């Protein structure tokens, strides 16, 4: 669905206005909504994230290099330019194909973070589970050091070393 004001961008903000018993629906893109003073702060759109990256760099090709700009997902045909257009990925495999670029985009959207430390499906392999546990502990260690909780930090460091030993150094840092 296109934005009702600029008729160009994808509408990401959907409002129902009720006045004098009349119900009108409004579908706007983020930037038009902000111009209209409607959006206080909705969820950040991918477009904005890319726009932030692209502002200093005129094209996807210059930003990510020609290999990335030309690359397409073999499963669904997704290109990084589609993300700018549609705001959405094409299939789970895209996250592997474009892993490096996504790290940049995700860090902008998620307060500088690009590594999952939450729930892991029970059917995920032992390696995945251990890698995520390690990432979680490292995150906690960072917070402990920041909050000057040095005893906790020492304990976390031990746990991390123990777990890294089990992984035999095969884990991503």
């Amino acid at each position, binding site marked *: 669905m296109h934005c009702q004001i600029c008729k160009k961008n994808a509408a990401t903000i959907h409002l129902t206005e009720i006045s004098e018993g009349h119900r009108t629906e409004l579908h706007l893109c983020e930037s038009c909504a902000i111009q209209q003073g409607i959006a206080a702060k909705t*969820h950040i759109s991918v477009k904005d994230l890319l726009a932030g990256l692209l502002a200093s760099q005129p094209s996807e090709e210059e930003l990510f290099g020609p290999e990335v700009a030309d690359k397409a997902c073999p*499963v669904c045909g997704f290109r990084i330019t589609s993300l700018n257009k549609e705001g959405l990925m094409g299939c789970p495999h895209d996250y592997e194909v474009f892993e490096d670029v996504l790290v940049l985009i995700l860090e902008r959207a998620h307060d500088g973070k690009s590594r999952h430390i939450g729930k892991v499906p029970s059917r995920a392999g032992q390696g995945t589970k251990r890698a995520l546990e390690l990432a979680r502990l490292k995150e906690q260690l960072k917070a402990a050091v920041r909050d000057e909780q040095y005893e906790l930090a020492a304990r976390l460091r031990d746990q991390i070393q123990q777990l890294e030993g089990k992984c035999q150094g095969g884990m991503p840092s």
Partner: protein
Amino acid sequence: MKLTDISGTFGQWLSGTGPLAEVVLSSRIRLARNLAGHRFVNRCTSEEKAQILETLREVLLSIELTEERFFVEIDQASDLTRSFLVERHLISRHHAMGKGPRGAVIAKGEYFTGMINEEDHLRLQVLMSGCQLGRCAELINQIDDMIERRVEYAFHPRFGYLTACPTNVGTGIRVSVMLHLPCLKMVGHLDRFLNAARDMNLAVRGLFGEGTEAIGDLYQVSNQVTLGVSEQDLVRQSEQNIIPEIVEYENAARRKLLADQQETIDDKIARATALLQSAQLVSSHEALTLLSHLRLGISMRRCLGASTPAIDRLCGLFGHDPCKDTKAIEVLNRLLLTTLPAHLQLNYGKALETYQRDALRAKIIRAALGGGS
């Protein structure tokens, strides 16, 4: 079980019970999940969507939950049904207006909904009254585990649960509360609240229409970051720090107005009561605005023990017994929904013109305030 079974009844989430219910109407947690081996919904053919719908419908209806569930085929449903489900917070507007095979499995009592083929293959939602995010998280985690035993989710060792939009990736969790903040606006602190929320990476939007000037003073606050933080930390932070702080901010404004400008509050409550008791035509906008003032009056009595001429008179309409105040909050929470256009029409049994809706709305509110017809 069918849709008509819920149009006349209400989920627990509207009961006005639970912690901080004077300000927090409801708590909601949503998880975004996708099936491994399928393209995301926006790139699926109609056949692929139908296949995903069938798989997930069967799983959601057969997992071992105590609550009875029913399925609504959203693409086959009438506009009125879809609007009703959106008004009721059981499906999203995006889901209502989507394309192709899609559906929703809804549990009786409305604790739980699974939207199939929304932006992601599966969007799970758990909804409860008051500030109960911890309990929501527990329940949705159990449901997610049960589903995961039956299907394989798309999961990446570094990025976590994969979602169509990169802003949901990682935990796929959206933790949100619906807040009633009438006094922050009256004391002119709404901007401060919005700025503080932005600094905490929270998204705030008016529940009804026009952005920061939300009709009915109802706001939805939710997290924006879903990656690099654990579900437990997000939920704990919201439930133990962020939400109580916002509630205290609103309550401080209520106490201040009560102490310094009692007439300001009393005038709003007295006018709202008098208007709604006698008006013959009430628009949606007017209903939301005035019901907000009644809800404020009742909840100031319940949590601050406020007694003013207008509050006393209003509480009297619901009976003088103090435990009636919780019941009164529930009545008002329900009126906020039952007087919305799709609710009015579905409960009436057919489509109504604006004029007829305004008359019916006025009548329902008069009856709820003890004014008979």
